């Protein structure tokens, strides 16, 4: 147990953890949105994220991105990557909904059927990319070279960490405003509270469901860009572990609760970095799940509770 290292550089490890957790949080939002409305664990969401990373990679390759472009080109690449990732992920998420879940919903299938369909779809997506793009890790050009922008005491904050955390929090605020303040958001909350009553009040349930899949997909696409910037590689099965972590984050914060996803993601990222520092990086996943179990023992609905519809029981 390396406590000296942890407490000696507590600030640094916290920043690392927050940056890591921001990506979890963005992906977790996709799980939590779908779960909040449909009570469905959308296992295919991890592959939605994976498709996003490949879209980012493809766009950069087509645009001829190289390492360390100037500040102007950097912004162009980031914008293009964001658009490509968001469009690809959003389209994949909506396609998954239309092709598979919608039909199951009309049949009123049991929850397990949804789960297996989601697993099947996620296999199809990741294997399709495995066959098409090969199974090796694919490197990406370093669009944003690492630089320390802040130095507080012995805590160094790099530009990629800053971008990741700020972008995640901005998108989170945007989503929160969208769900809580706009007309569409009211529809989403209404369907989350009670689908049948919402339908009677004139909310188009199918459109709301499509909307949440689209939103989840867009956020996963943004997460894919941030992931590409920070880690600079992708792989056909990149989504699996990340999706697992993101779902853990969603549950940790309280699944169905948007702010919970943010809190859960950040907390999970920080815990993992702390655990990796204390022992070795081999144990970070174990620590993450142990914390999840302990939290669920004392707060069975997660840190912030479930509340997409605010009034749900």
């Amino acid at each position: 147990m390396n406590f000296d290292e942890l407490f000696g550089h507590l600030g640094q490890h916290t920043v690392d953890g927050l940056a890591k957790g921001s990506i979890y949080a963005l992906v977790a939002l996709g799980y939590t949105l779908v779960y909040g409305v449909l009570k469905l664990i959308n296992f295919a969401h991890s592959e939605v994220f994976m498709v996003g990373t490949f879209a980012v990679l493809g766009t950069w390759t087509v645009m001829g991105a190289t390492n360390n472009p100037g500040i102007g080109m950097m912004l162009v690449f980031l914008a293009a990557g964001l658009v490509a990732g968001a469009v690809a992920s959003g389209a994949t998420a909506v396609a998954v909904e239309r092709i598979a879940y919608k039909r199951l919903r009309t049949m009123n299938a049991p929850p397990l059927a949804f789960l297996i369909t989601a697993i099947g779809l996620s296999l199809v997506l990741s294997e399709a990319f495995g066959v098409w793009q090969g199974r090796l890790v694919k490197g990406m050009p370093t669009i944003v070279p690492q630089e320390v922008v802040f130095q507080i005491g012995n805590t160094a904050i790099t530009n990629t960490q800053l971008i990741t955390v700020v972008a995640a929090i901005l998108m989170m605020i945007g989503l929160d405003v969208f769900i809580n303040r706009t007309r569409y958001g009211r529809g989403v909350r209404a369907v989350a509270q009670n689908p049948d009553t919402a339908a009677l009040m004139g909310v188009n349930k199918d459109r709301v469901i499509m909307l949440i899949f689209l939103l989840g997909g867009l956020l996963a696409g943004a997460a894919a860009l941030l992931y590409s910037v920070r880690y600079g590689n992708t792989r056909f099965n990149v989504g699996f572990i990340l999706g697992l972590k993101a779902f853990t984050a969603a549950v940790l914060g309280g699944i169905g609760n948007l702010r919970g996803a943010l809190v859960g993601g950040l907390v999970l990222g920080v815990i993992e970095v702390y655990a990796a520092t204390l022992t070795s990086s081999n144990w970070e996943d174990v620590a993450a799940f142990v914390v999840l179990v302990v939290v669920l023992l004392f707060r069975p609905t997660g840190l912030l509770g479930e509340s997409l519809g605010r009034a749900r029981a």
Partner: protein
Amino acid sequence: MTTDSKVERDPKVERKRVSIGDRWRALPKWQRWLGFAAFVAFLYYLPLLGIPGLTWLRTDYIANGNNWAGVLFTCAVYVLIALGLNVVIGLAGLLDLGYVGFYAVGAYSVALFGSRQSPVVQAIQDKFGLSQEWAMLWAVCIIIALVLAMISGVLLGWPTLRLRGDYLAIVTLGFGEIIQRVVRNSVSWSGGPAGIAAIPGPEGAPSADNKVFGLLDAKPWYWLALSVVLLIVFLVRRLENSRVGRAWLAVREDEDAAAVMGVYPFKFKLWAFAIGAALGGLSGLLFASRAGFIEPNQFNAQLSILFVAMVVVGGAGNMAGVAVGAFLLAYLPERFRDFAEWRFLVFGLALVIVMLIRPQGLFPSRRRARELQDRREEVPAGV
């Protein structure tokens, strides 16, 4: 009464399926026993079949050889897993996505206590001054595997079974991952990523002298696994019709109602978890004994998901259904090994298509099918 309305609603499909099942059940008992015995005899004869295309399987172990018996062994182990997981998912209605954890506990029990190369056995040898040749007997390892798997099931179930269904899913998924990581990271007692070799079978450590349970001929292993499967089928069938089985059914259909009627849901859920875990451990033990060598990567989370898929595709709750599901999901990827790159893609597609066409599984239990029918009437096109 439910049956009548069902027949009216969808006369073609329902009447046909009900009549096949009913016709079988209407037969005199001795005829059913005869049919069953013939079927069992056929299962034992299966590895000797030599139909090209169906049973002539390519293999990675033996170049240009036939591994049909080996594939059958895998199928039998998977059927055993499906039977165990069916107790948890099908009978008690708990979604367990970490079943590979129990499978790994079983496999590592026999590896750690039975293999002369395992750190645990070597530590025991040192401590009690035993010879280098000493290791636990295979039969003792079975007991250890069952006990350890059951204990891990109870340890996992104790804190988590009070949670609602979906939380249980994620916690169990995490458990499956944790077991794998712990084994991989604890080099000092588990062999770590290098794995453990020389895992014993019924005849002791694998060697060329073994007459029956050798390395090359998989047929005896298949017969062993099949016998275990038949024994477990019998035991689970007895359990299903017992007080415990009825309690599971009540808890699955309505937990609150069951609690009001004096069935303590937690207790029976924990039983389901423990029994399912023991069966998972048993199948892990068979797998490890046959393979003779295990390493942590063989117990990944994808495998758990495959296990759940076997149960759901086959039809949760129906033992024959889950057995067929397990057989198909174990056999088809082997059969299509030639399409190496594509087979998991096709496998995923198959899962989706089966679920879209038959969301209740290929062969659902009668009771489950009826529950689903009620569900469909209750909330037409609801969420």
